[in-house]
């Protein structure tokens, strides 16, 4: 994860991005690049704009200025439904499942834009192999799942789009540590088997830096630090500010 222009082969490059909710500006000249196949973590305190950055990349929010270049083509202003078709999936904060639909229906909705039925079926098998706990509850309404199962279902739905970039917003929020471990293990497996690029936003900094290879810190809408995950983990300032050590 580097600044603008770091590496020609960047899969995603965000350049001088500004975003606002009405008159309240949230992001100020944010630069960020992701290399294909890497896992990067976006850290920072509450209200720093992490979720806003993910929402802007996903196309839910139109930037007020700046560029988002994806695989060599501009992405900004495309709208969320077209952004997914380009290969970017967001697992939103709070899971946002279709509560009245079953687990299978939710997961299948993730493949809404895909027309190859055989491929979708294959992926469905892969997903349920990845999450045996979810497979056991296929016919349960998503709203009746436990928090951990809901998170698994949300990730499964995101993966069904067969994204090249999977963005995960606060996946550990409200989950038991054992459940978080299980989900992280399964994300590692996805990364190993599919080589999916991931951008994770996390409060659980320890977990994020163990999973990611690089990290960036966002404070009050600006990127203030970019480094290797290991380096951030050993940094005394990061330790006191985010790890509570």
């Amino acid at each position, binding site marked *: 994860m580097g600044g603008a222009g770091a590496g020609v082969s960047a899969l995603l490059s965000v350049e001088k991005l500004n975003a606002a909710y009405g008159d309240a500006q949230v992001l100020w000249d944010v630069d960020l690049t992701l290399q294909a196949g890497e896992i990067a973590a976006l850290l920072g305190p509450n209200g720093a704009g992490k979720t806003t950055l993910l929402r802007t990349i996903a196309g*839910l929010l139109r930037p007020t200025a700046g560029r988002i270049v994806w695989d060599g083509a501009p992405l900004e202003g495309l709208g969320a439904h077209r952004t997914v078709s380009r290969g970017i999936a967001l697992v939103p904060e709070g899971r946002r499942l*279709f*509560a009245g*639909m079953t687990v299978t229906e939710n997961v299948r909705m993730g493949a*809404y834009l895909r027309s190859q039925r055989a491929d979708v079926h294959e992926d469905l098998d892969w997903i349920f192999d990845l999450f045996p706990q979810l497979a056991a509850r296929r016919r349960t309404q998503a709203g009746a799942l436990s928090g951990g199962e809901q998170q698994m279902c949300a990730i499964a739905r995101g993966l*069904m789009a067969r994204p090249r970039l999977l963005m995960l917003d606060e996946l550990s929020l409200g989950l038991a540590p054992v459940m978080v471990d299980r989900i992280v293990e399964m994300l590692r497996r996805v990364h190993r088997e599919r080589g999916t690029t991931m951008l994770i936003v996390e409060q659980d900094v320890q977990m994020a830096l163990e999973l990611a290879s690089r990290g960036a810190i966002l404070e009050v809408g600006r990127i203030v630090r970019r480094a290797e995950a290991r380096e951030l983990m050993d940094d005394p300032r990061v330790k006191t500010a985010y790890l509570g050590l």
Partner: protein
Amino acid sequence: MIAQEILNAILIGGIYASIGIGFSLVYGVMNLLNLVHGAVIMLAGYVTYAMFRAWGLDPFLSIPVTMALFFAFGYLVQRLLINRILAASVLMSLILTYGIDLVLVNVVLLVWKTDLLAVTPAYAGASWTVGSVVVSKVRVGIFLVSALLTVLMYLFLDRTRTGNAIKAAALDREAAQLVGVDTMKIYAITYGISSALAAASGSMLATIYTLTPTIDGIYLGKAFVVAILGGLGNITGAVVGGLALSFAESLGVFFLGPSYQEVIGFSIFLLVLIFRPYGLVGRRFYAEI
């Protein structure tokens, strides 16, 4: 003649349900109280009348025509007008849909004036007699078509890709966009379907009720009451609501007299709003349709 009243209630309940389903669907998917619903039912009735007069087209055969016509009308109204104000306050959408309602009423006044009109196919008065009960053939036909449309609507929402996208957009708009649903297009399709259902009802109702340019308000009232009885946005509920309203009306007319028909419907509407604002049929998750 309580048996006669119960039969009438069931037969009319079918069409009340299909009026309510369209209205409820639009509310469930985009939180829109669609004040145009009654006017579409009315206008479809006039179109049916015009085709009956001009070409002798049977009102039941005109259903596919009015449905196609009003699907296109609804799709365009949502795409070009309502989609623009969805993000604004509820008041704006009420003003807009009331405005469209006024336009349609004035189209009717311009084209058909204020004469009382009726669609009268040869079989209009035909009936079977079972014991002491008279079974109107037209009403049986109306019930069957309404039931068929309701079943098709269920299957469409449950089994098709577009139907699932409509459900997803109703449950969580942003999450639907995140899986690739073009919600603005889905809203237009939803409004189109709702209008098509209203049009089918309008074509059929023209065979049993006289057409007047003020009947839009009465039909809108029915749609509203049925949808509230079933729980706004709940399609299964709308079926229950349709039957509940027609039973209440029929029994009310039987025990109290015909002048109480509307009073009874709206009294129940108020009672439900006070005691069971989520409708007679409960839902587990919000916006489940």
